[in-house]
């Protein structure tokens, strides 16, 4: 197999902003063959029982490609929402709601990372005030301890551990981690440093995408 | 329960009346309202009955189907109650409104019938552990005029009495089991309901208790005692219902009444059912019209 060699760069990314007309911001992101579409509504009206007096209520709905959402999806949803709450300056819009829909289109690995990146692009597109940007990078460890960046679904299956990091654009600190499998602290740290380096590419990609959007308008 | 609104004075009037053993429709405390019963009213069922108790009207259909016995009782048939509160009876039943009441009635009936001697379910076994008759008893509340539990139990007993189960022959060759249903409409089995229970509801109103409470009386009642009573006077189920409490001595009195009335109810019901059966096919059908 050609991709059994250790891969240290991300798959090709492409994105399209504002594809949808109804939402306030939307983004469709491809990372390799993995594709996720996100849409942002808000800030808008909030249901009375969810109202918070000091900030906007952030709601995320994660839709799997097929079937009903189960525990796994709820877990994903919460990871995305918490990440989103961290970067949004929600205190600027008290007593309102920001709602995000993240729709999985195709999963060929690194799904969670792709979801978070597309969410970040959709927020950018909507012009919402944010503290900083975030970039999600996924990698897997194989049984020899080699790191594969931005793994495909095949690579995920045979992996020793699957790790997703989210870094902020200012200090490159860890906003979110989801790491499962069997690995040592050293391996964890190795993954973290590889992913942190790769996050720069994503931030660069965000910039490119926005430049493209500005040129067109 | 289906609630009606009453003023305090109306309640006082009813409570005092019951103390005097003279209720607002002229009855004494232990009198039932006039009850009319008809069996074999729905031809698509294995047995059916309709009971009208003043303004309370209940239709019961029994459907016998072959099914698997429950794991706890491999050599017995099954009896399953399902109550449906029609929204025609009261708009409160619309949607899921009648669910709680329906569950309460079916639970009480299940409990009252959950005794090995009430109904010989052993007769309903076809092949031990594999096939048995399942009797689905569907109870439909058509109109609510008080005392639903008693009326439902009477209707159930009548419908079971009326139930015909086709005779089955089981042939076995080389481990291959064949079940054959007789298609002769007269080659059927009947159920013996002699020791099946009727439910008697005793409503504590003021310092006395009454049987067969009307809707207005139910609105005055804080605590009821429901009893499943057989013809022999044994008790197959007991339940206190409502938000009030009872004196131990009045519990005893109520049980005494319940037993007495229950036995009489069972006796009259069986007489009526036998009478109707004797008339056989000649009898005049009234169906659903009054």
């Amino acid at each position, binding site marked *: 197999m050609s991709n059994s060699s250790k891969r240290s760069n991300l798959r090709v990314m492409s994105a399209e902003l504002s594809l949808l007309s109804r939402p306030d911001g939307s983004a469709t992101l491809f990372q390799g063959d993995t594709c996720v579409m996100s849409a942002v509504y808000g800030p808008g009206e909030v249901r009375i029982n969810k109202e918070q007096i000091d900030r906007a209520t952030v709601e995320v709905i994660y839709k799997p490609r097929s079937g009903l959402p189960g525990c796994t999806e709820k877990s994903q949803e919460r990871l995305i929402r918490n990440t989103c709450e961290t970067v949004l300056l929600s205190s600027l819009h008290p007593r309102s709601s920001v709602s995000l829909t993240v729709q999985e289109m195709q999963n060929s690995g690194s799904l969670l990372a792709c979801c978070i990146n597309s969410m970040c692009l959709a927020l950018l597109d909507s012009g919402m005030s944010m503290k900083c940007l975030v970039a999600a990078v996924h990698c897997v460890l194989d049984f020899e301890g080699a790191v594969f960046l931005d793994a495909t679904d095949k690579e995920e299956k045979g992996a020793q551990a699957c790790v997703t990091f989210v870094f902020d654009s200012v200090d490159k600190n860890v906003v979110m981690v989801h790491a499962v499998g069997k690995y040592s602290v050293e391996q964890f740290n190795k993954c973290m440093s590889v992913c942190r380096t790769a996050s720069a590419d994503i931030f660069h990609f965000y910039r490119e995408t926005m430049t493209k959007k500005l040129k067109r308008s | 329960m289906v609630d009606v609104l009453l003023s305090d004075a109306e309640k006082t009037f009813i409570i005092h009346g019951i103390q005097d053993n003279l209720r607002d429709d002229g009855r004494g405390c232990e009198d*039932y309202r006039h009850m009319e019963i008809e069996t074999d009213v729905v031809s698509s069922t294995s047995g059916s009955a309709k009971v009208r108790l003043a303004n309370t009207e209940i239709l019961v259909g029994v459907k016998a189907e072959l099914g698997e016995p429950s794991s706890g009782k491999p050599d017995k048939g099954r009896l399953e109650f399902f109550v449906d509160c029609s929204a025609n009876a009261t708009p409160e039943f619309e949607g899921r409104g009648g669910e709680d009441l329906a569950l309460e009635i079916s639970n009480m009936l299940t409990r009252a019938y959950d005794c090995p001697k009430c109904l010989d379910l052993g007769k309903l076994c076809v092949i031990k552990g594999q096939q048995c008759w399942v009797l689905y008893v569907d109870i439909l509340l058509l109109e609510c005029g008080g005392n639903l539990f008693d009326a439902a139990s009477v209707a159930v007993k009548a419908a079971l009495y009326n139930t015909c189960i086709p005779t089955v022959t089981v042939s076995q060759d080389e481990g291959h089991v064949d079940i054959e249903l007789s298609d002769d409409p007269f080659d059927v089995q009947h159920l013996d309901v002699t020791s099946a229970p009727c439910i008697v509801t005793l409503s504590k109103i003021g310092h006395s208790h009454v049987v067969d409470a009307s809707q207005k009386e139910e609105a005055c009642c804080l605590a009821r005692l429901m009893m499943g009573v057989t013809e022999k006077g044994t008790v197959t189920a007991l339940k206190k219902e409502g938000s009030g409490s009872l004196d131990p001595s009045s519990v005893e009195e109520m049980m005494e009444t319940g037993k007495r009335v229950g036995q*009489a109810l069972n006796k009259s019901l069986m007489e009526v059912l036998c009478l109707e059966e004797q008339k056989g096919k000649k009898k005049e059908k*009234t169906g659903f019209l009054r």
Partner: protein
Amino acid sequence: MAVDIRVAGARERPKPEVSEELNNLVTPGDVITSDTGYLRGHGTYMDDDKLLASVAGVVERVNKLICVKALRTRYNGEVGDVVIGRILQVGMRRWLVETHSKLNSILMLSSVNLPGGELRRRSEEDEKMMRMYLKEGDLISAEVHSVFADGSLSLHTRSLKYGKLGQGTLVQVSPSLIKRRKTHFHNLPCGVSIILGNNGFVWIYPTAMEKTEKTGGYETDLQPVTSADREAIARLRNCVLALAHHRMLLFDTSILYTYEASQKFSAKYIPKPEVMTEIIEIARGRLEREGT
């Protein structure tokens, strides 16, 4: 103790008699007349110059006016009607009252008598005391004061004969069975009084229970009713139901005759179908003979 069960088929069913009223029976869509000279009343509509029925009922003709009176309807209130109603809700300066009409009726705080006499200003205290006067579930007798544009009724009780009802029993029948009379309050010779509300609510109560005027009638007498009165009330209640069951008009004479006819039975047997039929036949015969 009595348990009274029987087979439904065992009851004798009298052949339905053909009354001449039935000749005038129409159902929705029936052409009543194609003459253009008539006026369109309740229960009818015009189409292609023809007058058609919009409800099932009996055609009534008053000069040029044609109405169809439905067999069973909700109460259509008219100003001046006596009604009996049940308080559903206590609201801002008003009570919502159930009178079996299409919409809930309204009783304004300003339309009731308050303790202390006729000429009294409604103070804020009174507003707070509203639930003390009348609370949810209470029964009142009242008169229709006005009909609002949406058809809901405004009631008043500003006469001593109206107000909160005490002990007694309520029977509900179809409003079309209440005969319109000069008075709807009757003291019957058996020691029992009856109020025939135009809305089909019939209130039966012991005559002795007169209201005391000092408290404005808001304090009810909760003393036990005597056995005799109670027996009479029960009998009367069953008679009213029997009359309604046979779709006979309710008014003092019909009720009294039925009551008298029922004497040979114990009160509790009256609801039995054949007893009902027998009593009603006797009363009907007597009414026809006397031509009332």
